[in-house]
Structures are given as C-alpha cells and as structure tokens.
C-alpha cells in the first residue's frame, strides 16, 4: 500500500504545509554555559558576555538580546565596547581580534561580525611578541592599543585593523628615563593593563606585570611619569578626575598613586592590604568610585586571606565604615560598576555592581541600604540545582497566573526594588500571544515556575517539596548566619547551589492542571505529592498513603535507596502550592510516569514495578497493578547493581588512563636501566592497540524478548473518558503503557459530584494490549469521533474547548518507540500504523499533540503529532492518518541530554537544554514564534557631549604630531565641529563626511 501513498504529491496539501510548519531556533534562555568574558558599554547601556565556546551575547533592557558566534569556537578572553559606538571588539584565546557591530536591518538591529584580525610580528619573532594581553579602545574611536606579552604596545586603526607601526610603544622607549636600578629589560615584560586618562585622551597608563606603571604621552611619544611598584601588578583604575589612580596587586594589596605635573616619579600615597596581615590572595580588579558625600566606594575582587578563605570567590565593597565581601558560589569571571556616565558629572555616584560568576549573574543595588540584590529579568540560572525534568503549560488562565505571581512576590521580598539598571535598546517585539509556564524540576526537590511567554525566561515562583520530609540538612541552617563582627564580612549572594542534600528529593515528574491549580509532583524515591494553590501561609498535616506496587510478588528484596522519612505533625507552608497528600510508592523506586485528572480528583503514578491510582479527594488508594515480569531481577533489586557496574567500568577506565600515562612518561624518560620495563610497556601498548583493532565497535542483533530487563517500567499514563467496554456507554478510564510494549486499560467508576465523598472510586481492568514488537510505549492518546484528541480535564468546563464528539467511534493511538498505531475502540482492532524504526532506524524519544495554525488564515488549524527522535530530528506526523508531514534536524544526535530534556508546547514550540544552564527555544509553527526583536540606537545627546570633551584634546594632539596621515581634512573637520557644536544636524553631517573620508 505504501508505494501508492508516497507523500508530497498533493499540491494543495503541500501549500498548506508551508503555511503551517516552519522550523526556527529562536532564542536561548538561561545563563550562558562557561562564560569567559564580560563587557559593558555605559553609553549603550548594554552588557556583553563571551563564552568558552566562542559565543557572544548582548543584553540590554528586558527583551533586548543579541547573539553572535565566532566561527573559531574559541574562548572569548576579553570584550571591549568601542566608546560611543554600536561596536565592540573581542579577543579570543587564539589571539584573534574581532570587530562586531549592531546594524539596523529590516527594522531591527542585528549583531554582525565585521572584521577579524590577528596581530603579526616581524618575521622570526616569537609568538609571545604578538600575544595580546591588554586591549584599549581609545576614546577617539579610531585606534586600538594592544598590549602584548613581549611588552610592546601596538596601535591598530579601526575599523580596518591596519597596524600603525610608527606608533608602536616599545619597552625600550618606555625605559628611557627610568632610573638605572629599576631598569631592566624584564620589568617591561607583559603588558598587564592599559588605561586611558579620564580627562586627557593623550595620556595612557601602561601597567606592566612586574609592577612598573608608566604614564605615556601619546602626543610626544614619551613616558611622562614612572610609578615604581614593587608588587606584581593585577589591575589599574583611574579616579574620575584623573588626579590619582589605584593599582591592585598579586599579594592582595592596593596602592594609590598621585599624578601631578611636578613629580615625575611619585611615591605611593597609600598602600593597603584590606584583609591582612596574613598572606592574601591577589586583588585582580579594583574600582574607586567617588560620591558626593566624599566617602568613596572601593570595590575589588579577591584579596581574601589565603589560608582560611583562599577558596572563596568574593567581591568586596567598602564604603566608609560599611564593608561587605559578597561571597559567590562559583568563580567570578568579571564584574563592572554602573555609575554616572555623564562626563559632566562631578562624581561617579555608583548605583549597581554587576558580577558575572561562572554560574550566574548577580547584581547588587549599591544605592539602597544593606546593598540588596536585584532580581535579574533574564540570564536566570536554570541550573542553580541540576534540572531533572521539565513540564510546559500553555495558555495559563489570568487568575492562576496572578496567583502564582503573587505567591512568588512574597518569596522575593529580600530583593531590591531598583529598576533593572542595564536598560539599553528598545524591545520592539510584539507582546507574547499568551501566558506560558515552564516548570522545571530540580535535584534538590524544588520546582521552579518560569514565565516562558516571551524572550526573557523569568522566574515567577519557586516551590520546595523538602519541607514535607526529614532530611539530614537542617532547613534552618542559613548560609548567612555569620555574626555582626565576623571578619572578613562575608555575605553569600546568588542562588546557584549545586549541592543537593539528598538525591532522593529530586523531582522526576510534574503535572499541573491550569484550571484547578492542582499540581502533582513525583520524585526519585517514589514520592508523589498532590498540591493545591493557597494564597495564604498555612500550617497543616500532609496526609500520607503507601502504595505497595509489588503486592503479590513476595520474596523479592529491594536493594535500592530507602524512602524519604516524613515529618510528623503539622508543617508550615508558605503561600503558593501546598502539599496536602503524599503517596509513597513501595518499593521507593523512581516515579517514571504521572497523570493527574483534576475533574475526577485522581492521580496516577507509575514506577519500574507497576502503577497505581489514588483518589486525592477521599485520600484513598483505588488500586495498584504490578507490571513486573517475574524474571526482571534488575527492576526488583533497584539501581544498585547497575551503579556497581558503572563504578567498576569507571575504575577500569581510570586504570587504563593511568597505565597509558605511566608508559608514555617512562618512554620519554628513557633511562637505560628501565629498558626492560620500557620494552614490556611497549609490548603492552602494542597488544592494546591490536586488541583495539581486533574488536571494533559492534552491535548485537537480537530480537527483543519478554524477558528483557525493565519490561514492567511504566512509561506513560493517560486518563480518558471513552468507550472502553461497549460502544453505547463511555466511562472514565486509565491507560498505562510499559517498557515492554504492554498497554493496560482500566475502566473507572467515579461517583457523581454529590456523592463523591461517600462512594469509593472503583477500577477494573478492561483491556490489555501486548504490542508484539515489544518496544516501550511512550504515548497513549484517545481521539474522539471527529478524530480530535480528547480535551484536557476541565477544559470544556471552562469553555476553552469544544466538548468531544461522543457519538462517533473513538480511536486509540499508541505510540511506541518504534511504531505509531491507531486502534478502534471499544473493540480493539488495528486500523493504521506507521513503522518508524523499521524504515528509518530511528526511535521516538518525545511525542506530543500540537495545534498548528495557518499563518495565512486565522480560521484554519489542525492537530498533529510533534515527535523528537533519538537522532535529534523532529518529525511532524498528521492525525489521524499518521502521515509524515515534514522533518527538521534539531539536536545533534550525540547530544543525548539535549534530546532527553526536550519538551514540546501545545502550540508547536519547544525547549531543550543546550547546556546544563540554557534552554534553546525552537518553533515548528509559522504562527507562534517568540524571538527577540529590538533596536539599539546611538543615544545622540550624550554622544555630542562626549565628542566634545574627548575629541577636543585628541585633535590638538594630532595637529602637532608630524607625519600623521590625512591631517588636513581632519583638521578642517574638527575645527568646524568646534564651531557648530550645538547644532546636532550639522554635527551628524560632519561625522558622516569624516567617516566617508576615512
């Protein structure tokens, strides 16, 4: 039959498919994996983050996001915005420089790479001669100063990256006037930092790694001041007025230096070791911020006492008598201060401290008392505890949305009320079409509720299930319990906490009913919690029931983990979702499937041993069904035996590595007495090599049998009101599918609402289908008389769905990893099937029903299956005829965790983890597309001021410097600029002619 029904021959359908389906990866949510560099433009009010995989991401006001990727996929080492421009320069670890710019295109700004450049030294020079260590984009916007490992400072022109060789600042030139005793060639090795004078662009401060600091006059090409530091230099910072600068050092000290015209070689004003007297770690970066009240803010990274606090990742803020060392749970990559960018302002007046740590972004409000943290609208650390599962709910009713937000706001009272300080650019994307929630379950027993409606994935509310249980960790053990007089004054900030107290708390399955506010959450140790949304704090007892899934299978011993101990007596729960019943599966194996029916008030759960149904209204277990095959020892004993084998294999591989290391080292050493050993090693290596060649990767071909392991593992549970026994009466039913290809159907009798508390819910097994191909059943779905999937519970009651057609005959769709099959109901006979694995060699990993609307007309939409395969492809398969519509490659097939993490939405979008901390959002629909769309404009007024104050002196310098090319045009241009400064239009014209002339 199939050969007559080749897809793609119906032109009408083909056209419709184009209107319905389209694949786009739209935006990355969460926190960039392995960030390596941070940059900030106070002018654009944009922040840039570079990663070790060569990505660069720009963030401004919520919704303003840009992403770029370096072709080389090398680590981004430094990011520098070109002053007053929509441009930035990145330095990669392969020593290449890249110029990126934001250009408007089609009504929105885009980030594009414009140029790339690698500094080349004279022929024969060592690579270190041109290894860039410091980058200074000059405020003239025309040149970059590149400090190198050799101590040379090269000048390159922008945007062409042409090296201006005659302007290179060599160590020899720098050392000319340094006193003899401090003068050695080595003192100018490695340029650590370059800083432009805040008031005079003709002067730059050059800091060499060994401690020598030089103020260089660009105009006269000579060093004007020498500052003879004795300690290894880490960083420099100019004070706003340019009268002083501050240097920080490897030994944990910082030093203030005066800059005046009368002393060319001044002594330091002050040298402080803030966390002395014992040896301290390096202070790697420092800010000195002036305020109106005269007390400066001194903000620096590191400097902790080496012995006791050397392992802390800290940033200290000192303001008068206030001092706090913000303590981060992960390494600090970099930080910056947001302060008054108005050049006319007299003081820095810092408002916020922005810290990029390896695993999160933390922003501290420096204006409010107590320096509280600011809740970031984006860059959320999804992985503050490892994500164990996710669940997406589309189109949340406004009422529930508001209640969740209000519950969340009560949790966020310790956050600052300061508006988000990084607010550059304008979000021009249309408002999200609906309210969507993404729920993530975490290893530490929490569920996080994310606003997934738009471009900014934003935490709304965090639910913890830990309170129900007794764990080793005392919940009152606060990280911030350090007393007032503790020294150093550490304060834990951020939310990243990868250490789980107890892995059994991990959340495995989540099911939220958006209409009733019922939430079911199931975890690693067989715990199933049913919760209800409560707007108030409450203290109550959580009812507790056990479900013995092994029932008649006596004599088996569970060797896995024990169940969690529960807390006796009433427990206090904060406003939000509050558990009212706990069903504990026995044995306490991982809950592998979960379904909740809020209308019938039933919750179904499954593990590797069987499944059960619980009536959460009467708080009574309705039934359990053991699905275990008697020979399945692995499932019975729990995961322990497998853990052992994993350990063993790990040990073996370590041994192998060690062995190979030993042998290679010996060979290199090559002593005569060791020749025998060497020979033996060589022989061993050869043997190992031969063994490798003899045993290539091979796969066993064997039919699956009923005795395979984990056949009883319950993969999917589904509630449906359908015709199970006869075609005249429909009834509630529960369907379960196992790993061994079995489908169980139970007929349920739910008492009518008025007698719901009086009569018990009853269940009877009505059907059992064994798929002969025995592949795991991953999805079960009932289609109504119109071949539409049955609506969700309460959907019809809320007028959000047509009531299902109960007149026509229903159909059952069973999706296994290998095949899709449609059966008739109530008499089960096979109607249709699609064999995926037999034809393509791929397997179903995720499947969901999605509604696709046409981008052309509003009145057409259809339901299809969205399927993710183990090869990372997404296929769309029509309902009810099971025809492949279209296929998109989405995830690399090697990315197993990405494939495992994928969730589809009900409207043809999806999310998957591209790293432990980032969700990629994709869209299969032409209609529903959430992607960033924003504009970044040059703020013009500030630009004028800037041009005035910064370019003026630069001009003067140019005029007198001989041999500067293009001097004449520039001179006239700049002169006019002075004259017509107040007229913006004219100025713009001049600028454009200047740019053209260049």
């Amino acid at each position, binding site marked *: 039959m199939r050969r007559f029904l080749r897809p793609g021959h119906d032109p009408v359908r083909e056209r419709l498919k184009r209107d319905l389906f389209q694949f786009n990866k739209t935006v990355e949510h969460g926190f960039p994996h392995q960030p390596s560099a941070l940059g900030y433009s106070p002018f654009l009010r944009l922040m840039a983050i570079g990663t070790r995989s060569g990505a660069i991401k720009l963030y401004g006001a919520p919704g303003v996001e840009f992403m770029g990727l370096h072709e080389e996929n090398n680590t981004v080492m430094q990011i520098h915005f070109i002053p007053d421009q929509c441009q930035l320069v990145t330095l990669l670890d392969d020593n290449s420089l890249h110029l990126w710019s934001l250009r408007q295109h089609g009504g929105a700004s885009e980030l594009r790479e414009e140029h790339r450049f690698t500094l080349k030294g004279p022929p024969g020079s060592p690579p270190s001669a041109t290894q860039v260590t410091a980058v200074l984009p000059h405020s003239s916007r025309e040149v970059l100063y590149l400090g190198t490992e050799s101590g040379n400072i090269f000048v390159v022109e922008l945007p062409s990256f042409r090296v201006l060789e005659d302007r290179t600042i060599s160590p020899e030139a720098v050392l000319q006037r340094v006193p003899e005793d401090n003068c050695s060639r080595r003192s100018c090795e490695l340029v650590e930092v370059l800083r432009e004078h805040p008031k005079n662009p003709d002067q730059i401060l050059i800091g060499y790694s060994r401690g020598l600091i030089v103020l260089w006059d660009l105009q006269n090409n000579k060093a004007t001041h020498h500052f003879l530091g004795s300690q290894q230099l880490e960083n420099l910072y100019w004070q706003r007025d340019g009268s002083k600068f501050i240097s920080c050092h490897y030994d944990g000290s910082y030093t203030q230096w005066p800059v005046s015209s009368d002393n060319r070689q001044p002594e330091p004003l002050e040298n402080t070791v803030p966390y002395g007297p014992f040896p301290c770690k390096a202070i790697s970066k420092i800010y000195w911020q002036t305020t109106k009240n005269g007390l400066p803010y001194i903000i620096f990274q590191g400097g902790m006492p080496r012995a006791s606090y050397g392992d802390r990742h800290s940033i200290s803020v000192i303001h008068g008598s206030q001092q706090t060392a913000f303590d981060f749970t992960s390494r600090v990559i970099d930080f910056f201060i947001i302060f008054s960018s108005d050049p006319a302002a007299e003081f820095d007046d810092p408002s916020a401290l922005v810290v990029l740590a390896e695993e999160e972004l933390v922003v501290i409000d420096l204006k409010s008392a107590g320096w509280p943290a600011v809740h970031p609208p984006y860059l959320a650390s999804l992985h503050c505890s490892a994500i164990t599962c996710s669940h997406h709910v589309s189109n949340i009713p406004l009422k529930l949305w508001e209640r969740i937000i209000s519950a969340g706001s009560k949790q966020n009272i310790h956050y600052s009320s300061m508006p988000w300080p990084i607010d550059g650019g304008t979000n021009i994307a249309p408002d999200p079409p609906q309210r969507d929630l993404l729920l993530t379950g975490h290893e530490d027993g929490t569920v996080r509720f994310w606003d997934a409606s738009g471009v900014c994935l934003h935490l709304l509310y965090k639910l913890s299930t830990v309170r129900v249980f007794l764990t080793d960790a005392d919940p009152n053990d606060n990280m911030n319990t350090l007393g007032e007089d503790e020294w150093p004054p550490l304060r834990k900030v951020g939310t990243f906490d990868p250490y789980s107290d107890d892995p059994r708390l991990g959340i495995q399955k989540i099911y939220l009913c958006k209409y009733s506010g019922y939430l079911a959450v199931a975890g690693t140790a067989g715990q199933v919690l049913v919760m209800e949304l409560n707007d108030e704090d409450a203290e109550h007892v959580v009812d507790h029931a056990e479900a013995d899934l092994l029932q008649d299978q006596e004599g088996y011993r569970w060797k896995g983990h024990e169940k969690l101990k529960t807390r006796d007596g009433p427990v206090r729960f904060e406003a939000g979702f509050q558990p009212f019943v706990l069903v504990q599966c026995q044995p306490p194996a991982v809950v592998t499937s979960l379904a909740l029916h809020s209308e019938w008030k039933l919750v179904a759960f499954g593990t590797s041993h069987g499944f059960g149904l619980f009536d959460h209204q009467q708080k009574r277990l309705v039934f359990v069904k053991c699905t275990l095959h008697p020979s399945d020892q692995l499932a019975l004993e729990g995961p322990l035996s497998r853990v052992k084998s994993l350990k063993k294999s790990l040990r073996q591989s370590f041994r192998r590595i060690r062995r190979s290391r030993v042998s290679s080292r010996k060979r290199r050493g090559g002593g005569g007495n060791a020749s025998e050993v060497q020979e033996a090693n060589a022989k061993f290596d050869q043997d190992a090599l031969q063994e490798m060649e003899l045993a290539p990767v091979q*796969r066993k*071909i064997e039919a699956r049998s009923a005795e395979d392991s984990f056949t009883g593992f319950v993969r999917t549970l589904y509630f449906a009101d359908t015709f199970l026994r006869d075609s005249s009466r429909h009834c509630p039913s529960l369907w379960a599918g196992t790993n061994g290809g079995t489908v169980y159907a139970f007929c349920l009798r739910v008492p009518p609402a008025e007698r719901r508390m009086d009569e018990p819910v009853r269940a009877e097994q009505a059907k059992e289908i*064994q798929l002969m191909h025995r592949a795991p059943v991953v999805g079960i779905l009932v289609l109504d008389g119109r071949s539409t999937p049955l609506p969700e519970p309460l959907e019809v009651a809320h007028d959000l769905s047509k009531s299902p057609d109960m007149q026509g005959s229903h159909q059952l769709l069973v999706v296994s990893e290998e095949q899709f099959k449609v059966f008739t109901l109530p008499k089960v006979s*096979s109607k249709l099937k699609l064999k995926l694995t037999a034809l393509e060699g791929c397997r179903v990993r995720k499947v969901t029903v999605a509604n696709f609307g046409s981008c052309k007309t509003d009145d057409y939409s259809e339901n299809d299956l969205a399927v993710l395969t183990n090869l990372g492809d997404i296929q769309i398969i029509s309902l009810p005829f099971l025809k492949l519509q279209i296929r998109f490659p989405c995830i690399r097939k090697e990315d197993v965790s990405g494939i495992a993490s994928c969730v589809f939405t009900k409207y043809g979008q999806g999310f998957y983890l591209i790293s432990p901390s980032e969700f990629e959002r994709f869209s299969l629909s032409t209609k529903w597309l959430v992607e960033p769309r924003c504009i970044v404009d040059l703020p013009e007024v500030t630009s004028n001021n800037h041009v005035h104050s910064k370019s003026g002196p630069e001009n003067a310098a140019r005029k007198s410097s001989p041999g500067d090319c293009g001097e004449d045009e520039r001179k006239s241009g700049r002169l006019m600029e002075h004259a017509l400064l107040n007229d913006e239009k004219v100025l713009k014209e001049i600028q454009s002619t200047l740019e053209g002339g260049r």
Partner: protein
Amino acid sequence: MNRAQRGAAGSRGLGTMEVKSKFGAEFRRFSLERSKPGKFEEFYGLLQHVHKIPNVDVLVGYTDVHGDLLPINNDDNYHKAVSTANPLLRIFIQRKEDADYSAFGTDTMTRKKNVLSNVLRPDNHKKKPHIVISMPQDFRPVSSIIDVDILPETHRRVRLYKYGTDKPLGFYIRDGSSVRVTPHGLEKVPGIFISRLVPGGLAQSTGLLAVNDEVLEVNGIEVSGKSLDQVTDMMIANSRNLIITVRPANQRNNVVRNSRTSGSSGQSTESSLPSSTPNILGNVLQGEEESDEEDIIIEDSGEPQQIPKAAPTSESIESLSQIELLHESTQNGFLPSSELNLTHSAGSISMEYEVPEPGHKSLEEDGTIITL
C-alpha cells in the same frame, strides 16, 4: 458467521454441553460452556490434561451430525464442532505418530467398523501405503535465500525467519568501508558489515550469512548513509521477519544463472542496483510485511471473578503444565500461545488484527474472556 453461531447456540438455551472424549481405549467425560468455548489451543490443552498425556502430540477429531469424523485443529472447526454438537460432542484422539489420516473425511464413521477391524486385526488387510499430507501447522517457515531472480549475482538476499524458533538471531554488525564503483572511479565508502556469528544462532545455523558480508539493505531499506546504531535498530525492529541483502565476502558460492553471459563480473550490475532493487523489493515484501507481528489483546482479564471459570478440571490440578499455564495467565495476562502459530497465506491479510492468529479474530471481537 460467528454471530449466527452464537445466536444458534444461545437459542438452544443450554449453558453447558457434554463432551465425551476417547483416547485409545480410555474415555473421559466433561462439560464445556457452550457460549464460551474458548480457543482451540486451550481445548487441546484441556484434552491433554484430562487424558493425562501432557506431552503427547495428538490429532483431535469429532463426529458431526452426519456421522463423519472431522478434524479439529483450529479455532474455526473447533467452534463449528461445539456449535453443532447435539447433545453430545464426541471426540476421538489419536497419537500423531500413529495417526491414520484416512480415517478423516466423508463417510468415515460409516466405515468405522472397518477401521476398527483394521486396527484390531492389522494382519488381515494389507493396506496400501497412504500419501500423508501434513497439516498446515506441521509446516514451519524457514530461513532462506530469496529473490535470486531479481538480484545481481554478487548479492544475496536472506530471510532469517525467527518466528517459531528458540534460536537467537545471533550475529553482530560493525562499521567498515567498502569499495564502490562510481562515475568518478573506485571510491571508498563507509559500510556495515557482519562482524561475528554466535555459535548455534540462527544466522550461523542457516549458513546463509558469514562474517565480513556487507549489509546493503534491511527489509528493503538501503543502509547506506545510516549509522551503525540506526541499522541495529532497524534490524531489531524487523527481527521477527528479518530480510537482509548482503554482498557476501566470499563471492565463490554465488548462484550462476544461465541468462547471464558471465556470472563473475558483477560490478556493472552492482552500480545499477540501488535505483532498481528497492522498488522490486517493495513489491515482494509488501504482502509479507504485515504478517510478522500481531499484537495481543486481553479483555477484562484482570477481573478476579473470571478466574473460577478458568479451570473446569480443577479437580486434578497436580499437572505441572496446567499450573504453569495458570501462572502465566494471571501474571502476564496472556497465553504464550503466539509461539505455536500457524503458517497461513500472508498475502491474504490486508489488515492487522490484535490476535495471534487470523483464525482467532472473530472470537476476539466478541470480547470473549479467556478461561482455562
């Protein structure tokens, strides 16, 4: 058909029906529920049980209203026997090895006396040797080389028939590279090869596959461009009726056809293969594809009240096999009966039924409860 039968059975108003079964010289009497006769296999098991011949292969026959001795060997004729028996169902059981096939047929019971006299005095009549035509279930599909006529001589298409044997498929595949003729000359391309045969496995015992044979197709789908894991999954998904097209590593045993001038120069045909064979194969495999797997449904098996009806012979439960069957049915909910499947004309089935055998279909659709 079935519906009419059921109606007829119901109109008789009799709940149970008497069965009189004869094996050798022994008679057994028991009763069956007329409206729910169950399957032939269960009936067969029941007969073996009541006669205490659990491991003896037998032929089952009955006398119909005309007095003819007719065989019972599938669900259809079993149901016919039950529905027409009035008031008593007479069953005759013979050992398979000394079965007399001539006993069946029209007028057999009128010749019965003769048959009996033959048995009693075998020396009297020297019966001429009978041509024995086996029952369908005595046939078993076996692994074979197929499509020899449409494939190039350098290729071999092998059907490994797993169905009905306990042998594992028993082979391994690996990645490798092979040389292909392309318009640009010889080219090295990645390929999938058989890397190992398990001793005693189906692949080895058939002798049709060998180590280093290159796998070209799996059930009509080309494997080129597919990863080792994909091909593995395809083979396992088709494992019940696996058709592998290989280029044998040993090309000396190829079938040489007369129509070809030279049997050994397979290169030219090989390059044309990918375009032509899948379509041919599509035709060939289409009918057979559906026969390879039929899912099983059990209705209402979980109901505890059904279990008492399960054993009409519960007075003699000491039989081990019976206990095992009971255990199977309660634990798994279904009989492992699919293993005893019949050969049937695969081409005639256009749809897949949820029953192990097409003959069971009508029974299943009535929602019959399985009882033992």
